[in-house]
């Protein structure tokens, strides 16, 4: 109801009045030119750093592709590449590049690792988030962090020195460097990620859900599996996916602990070779620019794509949660 609109005189825009550009106070110093310019430069540097992440992701894809592109266009037989288990890159007479066995190696080790790690990881996340006291929680979180800090090569060393004889003894098998060894190591390496992200997902569920459930007489456990897990399922799924991503990309531990046999495993006690280990093991011997060298880079692209897809999925799942 602009009852007042009529009574107001039109606003006088007095544009002749000079307004100083950087008046600090009516009297007193102004910011000198240098600091204003310096600040503008700094803000541009900051913006540049901000988009650097995008540049690096593209850069990685570009430079890895660059080294491998020769293989892609030099008579690549896609069917043979993806569906043959015959990996003989150094053979002079009959060179073959089938990565199926390597893919099987990666997924068997990862799959078994997740089978072990997911229950433990989620169970531990639930325990830390819902069932333990503050002091125990702090200690457990420190332990989890330290476990996560153990370098991959140290895990590989443990695989060779400790797990190897252990597996041979406990399961009565001749060789201890196999799928099981790698899977156990990967499980121990992925659990910390799953616990910390899983715990975050559970903490994100509002307390009001817990209070409402407990007020109706439900026990803690009933609250967890009837109310909290469904509510947090997106975040927990993301946690598992990130654990998978970590496991697929792991190099040194599987290089040292899964053996050197390129074949599709028929039992957890068979040695395998993963995609990552193949690159690490063979890159040193391949001369720069040779087809063998290039195909290793192509495997790198394959790995990059797999982990990119996994991370993207996990990110989208988390974003979908936030919209609620």
């Amino acid at each position: 109801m602009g009852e007042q609109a009529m009574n107001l005189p039109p606003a006088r825009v007095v544009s002749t009045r000079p307004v100083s550009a950087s008046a600090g106070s009516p009297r007193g110093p102004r910011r000198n030119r240098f600091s204003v310019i310096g600040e503008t430069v700094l803000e541009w540097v900051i913006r540049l750093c901000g988009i650097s992440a995008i540049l690096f992701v593209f850069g990685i894809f570009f430079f890895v592709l660059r080294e491998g592109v020769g293989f892609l266009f030099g008579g690549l037989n896609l069917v043979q590449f993806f569906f043959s288990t015959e990996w003989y890159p150094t053979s002079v007479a009959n060179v073959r590049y089938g990565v199926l066995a390597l893919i099987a190696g990666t997924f068997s080790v990862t799959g078994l690792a997740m089978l072990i790690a997911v229950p433990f990881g989620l169970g531990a996340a639930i325990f830390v988030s819902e069932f333990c006291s503050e002091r125990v929680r702090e200690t457990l979180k420190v332990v989890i962090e330290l476990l996560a800090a153990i370098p991959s090569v140290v895990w590989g060393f443990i695989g060779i020195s400790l797990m190897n004889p252990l597996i041979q003894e406990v399961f009565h098998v001749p060789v201890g460097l196999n799928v099981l060894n790698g899977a156990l190591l990967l499980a121990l390496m992925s659990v910390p990620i799953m616990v910390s992200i899983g715990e975050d997902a559970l903490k994100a569920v509002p307390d009001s859900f817990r209070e409402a459930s407990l007020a109706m007489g439900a026990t803690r456990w009933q609250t967890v599996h009837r109310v909290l897990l469904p509510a947090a399922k997106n975040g927990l799924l993301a946690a598992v996916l990130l654990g998978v991503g970590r496991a697929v990309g792991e190099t040194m531990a599987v290089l040292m602990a899964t053996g050197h046999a390129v074949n599709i495993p028929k039992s957890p006690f068979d040695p395998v070779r993963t995609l990552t280990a193949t690159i690490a093991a063979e890159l040193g011997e391949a001369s720069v620019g040779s087809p063998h060298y290039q195909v290793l880079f192509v495997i790198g692209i394959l790995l990059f794509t797999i982990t990119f897809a996994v991370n993207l999925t996990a990110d989208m799942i988390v974003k979908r949660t936030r919209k609620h």
Partner: protein
Amino acid sequence: MFESVTPPPVRPLAPPKIQVRDLKLSYGAQEVLHGISFDVDRNDIFAIIGPAQSGKSTLLKCLNRTIELLPNARQSGQVLIDGVDVSELPSVYSLRRRVGMVAPLPVGLPLSIFDNVAFAPRASGFHDKQELAALVERCLRQAALWDEVKDRLHTLGTKLSGGQQQRLTIARALSHEPEVLCLDEFSIAIDPVTTMRIEDVLKELKQHMTIVLVTNLVQQARRLAGRTMFLWNGEIVEEGATDVVFSDQPQSRKTYDYVNGIFG
């Protein structure tokens, strides 16, 4: 029925300090201010009253252009200070030093009390120690805080009580010698005693600057303001001399109802 019986008081001869013309503001698709226009006289306390979600805080943010910091705010219309459109000023930072702002919730920056008040002068180039010390003391005295903190100027501003932090905010606002001081429901989170002290401070300050006071305490407007504006759902219901707005016969029935607590 509700015609004005008393003639409106004579408006001062000096040009108004602030002129708002047809100000519209939307957040995304939702329009919050529907084209309002009013004047604020110099050296006066101008109160804006109205229920929650009327657009009062949004209006203040348009005065010092902090509305630009909100992601999807779109503005049209003019805000003029001393006859100059604020959106045409070369430096938004100097505008914000000419228009002080006090937020609803008290904020003490995690610096010493001295550094809290000295923050703005230092940012605009003051570094002389003695001048700063004098400035800090003057601002703290004006904000009625000096006596309580003069012996502990180097303690953290965040450790003060709510009422003290609000006065500290006022001292910070005074440190850059504003021509206009905006207060957005300053008394929401502080005790009544401090509120009265700050009201005394405002009565003192209006001699040196123009004050725009948004308040949900209708009686506070009555105590302090020369002119009062009743804003409802982004539109001006009534704007005029406080005496008239709070009288038995304001220009609008709605004003009477709101002021007397019949709705709101």
